[in-house]
């Protein structure tokens, strides 16, 4: 046996191994890669401070290199000071310390401080674990494809850091960063089947395990009050409110009223929701109904949106149509609002049924009295107009018609930039400026109705939406926010949209058509065609698919997938067994591929051990110290008649195994063939034994 002696590295076991400069650099790179996706969601000074601390360690590393032997050390009391200061600053910035976002901010700083004092490989392990958690936290603030892409470099560098930590400084593998990244990438690729398996099979939970606190964020959307200007301000936003996939045909724009908060209290200026809403009854689903799926962006409020009249309760965590919906998630109020029991703080996907009806019966007899209240003072001219309308009209229906006719006759102007009046805003709008947005029209109309003695209320929500032909779904943006009125006539609530009377194109075509070119309509609501619009729609389609299949892969979709594959009938332990079996199959395939490679590499060794075994059975085992040539010589002395075969076996094997690499094509194969043929010539073990005796 030829033994190539190599310098053995010896490791001192007493002290924990210190971090090398290369390992420290890896850890620093990993921390920065994890910090960057998190930084936009932190106060800028926390984000900057964390990155600066990492930079400081790099500066110290440079200094260490300039002055070897005297590594820079930061006194530990400074670090404690840093940590306390960071905690106080986070507390000051967020107003509280125990909560999701301040905790993340504190962790962010703490990792940087820990890095500043990290000296041993064990510190490195702790940092890797902390940083892994920091990879998850940016997703609290959004799960866009960009956020997903932003996590990938950090993942890769984290793997490479583990690789670097696992190698002692003098390992020949420790040097090249490119090689470390490639090795890690290969491991990640090999792990993808396991990751996919876990993603599909790991059961999602129905509700949060612990309370998910509502964190006030920069979410836009309809609120529980409507003051002049609030909806027109919302209409300046391009942000998507929700997306809708219809099961069948899409209703025409004039029928796309997405019902949201219903406002019935008026203080002379702003409309607000009734403080407590009684539960109501759902409309019956029947002919002419629509089924669709809403993917709602988080807006931090409890309302859920449905087309016109909801006929089902949203159940985002439920099993689907064939399972009875869990009643717990949402309820319908007596004014036909869909309300979740907790605010919507994450992307929500729910199936919904609706009836396309603009009228429905009152919830209980005599409830109309609640919808006649007006402040005792203010807006005197509107009050008078109301009384006047009642005097002229007679029946409730006639009063409504007369009011709409009045709106049509007077020179009203639909604009996003109405002048704001401080006193008696309804009077100012109806009689002086006559310029307003939908909230002005709806609000003033309801005041007129109440003054005329017709029960009425304001309904806010969205109207219209843009069809995305790329993805085949409807995009409803904040710029589609709308307000309209509902009046109670003869025991039936009817929708009345004064905006439609003044600016019918708003309802038929959308905001940009109803507005003059000088109005600040958001870009994507304004765009009609062209490459920008096309690419924007394509991007949105991608985003929607992402939300549906990746971000929205919740319990419901998981169950649906299981149903489609046919594994939904399995019990929990059977699923676990299936997962384990697939995992073993993965390991088998991965190791099998490796094994196959070995077999082709080592044909000569298999043949050699075959020859050795045969001789050993014949009574001449190879001695541990014996090389092939010496063994063949001994065998030739015992069986001189096969000397040629023995030497052929030994020589070809030794050349293959210990000779210079065979470079010419076929040379190697020829040697292997020689080896195989020589072994074929040898008689079986029993014959050899008798030949010797």
């Amino acid at each position, binding site marked *: 046996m030829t033994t190539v002696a190599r310098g053995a590295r010896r490791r001192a076991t007493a002290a924990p191994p210190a971090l090398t400069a290369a390992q420290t650099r890896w850890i620093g790179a990993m921390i920065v890669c994890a910090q960057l996706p998190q930084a936009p969601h932190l106060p800028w000074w926390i984000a900057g401070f964390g990155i600066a601390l990492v930079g400081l360690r790099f500066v110290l590393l440079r200094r260490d290199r300039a002055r070897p032997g005297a590594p820079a050390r930061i006194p530990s009391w400074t670090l404690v000071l840093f940590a306390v200061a960071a905690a106080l600053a986070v507390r000051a910035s967020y107003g509280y310390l125990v909560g999701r976002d301040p905790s993340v901010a504190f962790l962010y700083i703490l990792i940087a401080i820990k890095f500043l004092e990290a000296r041993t490989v064990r510190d490195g392990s702790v940092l890797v674990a902390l940083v892994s958690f920091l990879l998850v936290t940016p997703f609290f603030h959004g799960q866009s494809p960009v956020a997903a892409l932003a996590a990938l470099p950090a993942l890769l560098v984290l793997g490479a850091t583990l690789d670097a930590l696992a190698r002692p400084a003098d390992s020949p593998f420790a040097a090249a960063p490119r090689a470390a990244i490639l090795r890690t990438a290969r491991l*990640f690729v090999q792990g993808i089947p396991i990751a996919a398996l876990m993603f599909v099979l790991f059961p999602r939970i129905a509700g949060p395990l*612990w309370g998910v606190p509502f964190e006030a964020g920069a979410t836009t959307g309809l609120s529980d009050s409507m003051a002049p200007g609030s909806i027109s301000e919302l209409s300046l936003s391009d942000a998507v409110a929700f997306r809708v996939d219809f099961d069948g045909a899409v209703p025409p724009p004039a029928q796309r009223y997405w019902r949201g908060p219903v406002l019935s209290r008026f203080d002379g200026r702003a409309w607000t929701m009734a403080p407590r809403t009684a539960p109501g009854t759902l409309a019956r689903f029947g002919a002419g109904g629509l089924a669709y799926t809403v993917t709602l962006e988080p807006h931090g409020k409890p309302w859920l949106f449905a087309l016109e009249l909801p006929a089902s309760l949203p159940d985002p965590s439920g099993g689907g149509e064939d399972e009875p919906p869990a009643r717990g998630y949402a309820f319908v109020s007596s004014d036909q609002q869909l309300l979740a029991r907790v605010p919507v703080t994450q992307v929500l996907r729910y199936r919904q049924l609706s009836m396309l009806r603009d009228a429905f019966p009152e919830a209980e007899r005599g409830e109309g009295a609640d919808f006649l209240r007006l402040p005792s003072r203010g807006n005197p001219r509107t009050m008078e107009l109301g009384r006047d309308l009642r005097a002229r009209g007679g029946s409730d229906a006639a009063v409504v018609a007369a009011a709409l006719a009045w709106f049509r006759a007077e020179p009203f102007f639909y604009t996003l930039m109405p002048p704001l009046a401080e006193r008696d805003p309804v009077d100012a709008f109806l009689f002086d400026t006559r310029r307003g947005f939908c909230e002005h029209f709806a609000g003033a109309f309801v005041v007129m109705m109440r003054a005329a003695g017709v029960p009425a209320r304001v309904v806010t929500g969205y109207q219209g939406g843009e069809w995305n032909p790329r993805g085949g779904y409807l995009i409803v943006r904040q710029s589609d926010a709308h307000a309209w009125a509902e009046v109670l006539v003869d025991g039936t609530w009817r929708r009345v949209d004064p905006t439609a009377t003044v600016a019918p194109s708003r309802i038929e075509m959308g905001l940009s058509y109803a507005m003059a070119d000088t109005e600040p309509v958001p870009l994507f609501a304004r765009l009609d065609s062209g490459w920008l619009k096309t690419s924007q729609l394509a991007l949105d389609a991608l985003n929607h698919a992402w939300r549906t299949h990746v971000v929205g892969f919740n319990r419901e979709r998981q169950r649906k997938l299981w149903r489609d594959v046919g594994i939904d009938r399995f019990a929990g332990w059977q699923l676990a067994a299936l997962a384990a079996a697939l995992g073993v199959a993965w390991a088998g395939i991965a190791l099998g591929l490796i094994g196959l490679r070995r077999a082709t590499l080592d044909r000569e060794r298999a043949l050699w051990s075959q020859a050795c075994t045969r001789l050993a059975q014949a009574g001449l085992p190879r001695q541990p110290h014996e090389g092939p040539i010496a063994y063949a010589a001994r065998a030739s002395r015992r069986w001189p008649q096969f000397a040629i075969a023995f030497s052929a076996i030994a020589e070809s094997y030794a050349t293959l195994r210990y000779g210079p690499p065979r470079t010419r094509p076929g040379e190697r194969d020829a040697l292997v063939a020689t080896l195989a043929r020589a072994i074929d010539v040898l008689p079986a073990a029993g014959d050899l034994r008798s030949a010797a005796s």
Partner: protein
Amino acid sequence: MASVAAQLPAAGAWARWRERLFRLAPGDGDCVVLRHSRIYILPSRRGWTMIGALAIMLLTSLNYALSLGLGVTFLLSGLVAAALLHAFRNLSGLEIRPLAAGETFAGGRLVYTLAVGSGGRTRDGLEFRAAGTATAVIDVPDGDTASVQIERPAPSRGRVALGRVTVSSTQPLGLWRAWSYVHFPLAGIVFPEPEPGAPPLPRGAHGQDASAPGQGDETEFAGLREFQAGDPPQRIAWKAVARGAGWYTKEFDGSGGGGPVALEWALLPRTLDVETKLSRLAAWVLMAEHAARPFSLAVPGASLPAGQDREHRRAALTMLATLPAGAAT
């Protein structure tokens, strides 16, 4: 050592299973190829830390229903799983042979050498360790055979078995520790420590003076041979080492020495204890060799006729090393 099975106590299934699991007896023969049945894997400390972090990430992602959080968690889990396979693969198929067990004097270090064949793929960061030894770390390139030296301090004389060797590796990411036990019947010999300041060689049996000609300097230089572990440092051809020509040991021709000398236990003062007697005899053996004089050795229960060569010296020292402590009384 041939019939290892016979040394095993004839015990029940539990004992056999225990032996199979922990390799408590030197049951491994010429060459061990590590296979799945003797490779064990558990998370390393870093692995446990990582698994803890993954558990927290999983809980958080589930609680906040973060699909992408789950995605990141599962991707990292995939990495950990792949590292598990590679940790197994780093040991699987490794060929380990016992190569040599060293010799040393008490107070020195005993070196055992194993040959490690790559078994068809590159192995990084293999750690070898037996009870009481330092950890030796080697890398074996594909197609290569490396030798690994396991060192152990040798405080007292005797035959010292290598014992069970733990071959382990935490590569590739340090998250898993894969290990395997190999137990070769490999034993080194620790000679008694030569007594410092020992009295000169006794007078020869035939009346020749022991201190007569032949102190080492005057013996004739006979040639160089390859260095072997345990050779005295003063015999190493340092000039050759410095030239980079390799490690050689100078050999001296003993023909110029005095006559044969008899080293006998019985001649030692009775007041000395057994170990001191052995130490003195060991010192005398070295002196005789140094002086290039043939010597014979007699201890209770064993004796060696006069001789002079290197094998003779080794046989004498081995006899001293393995003399049972109770044999002399």
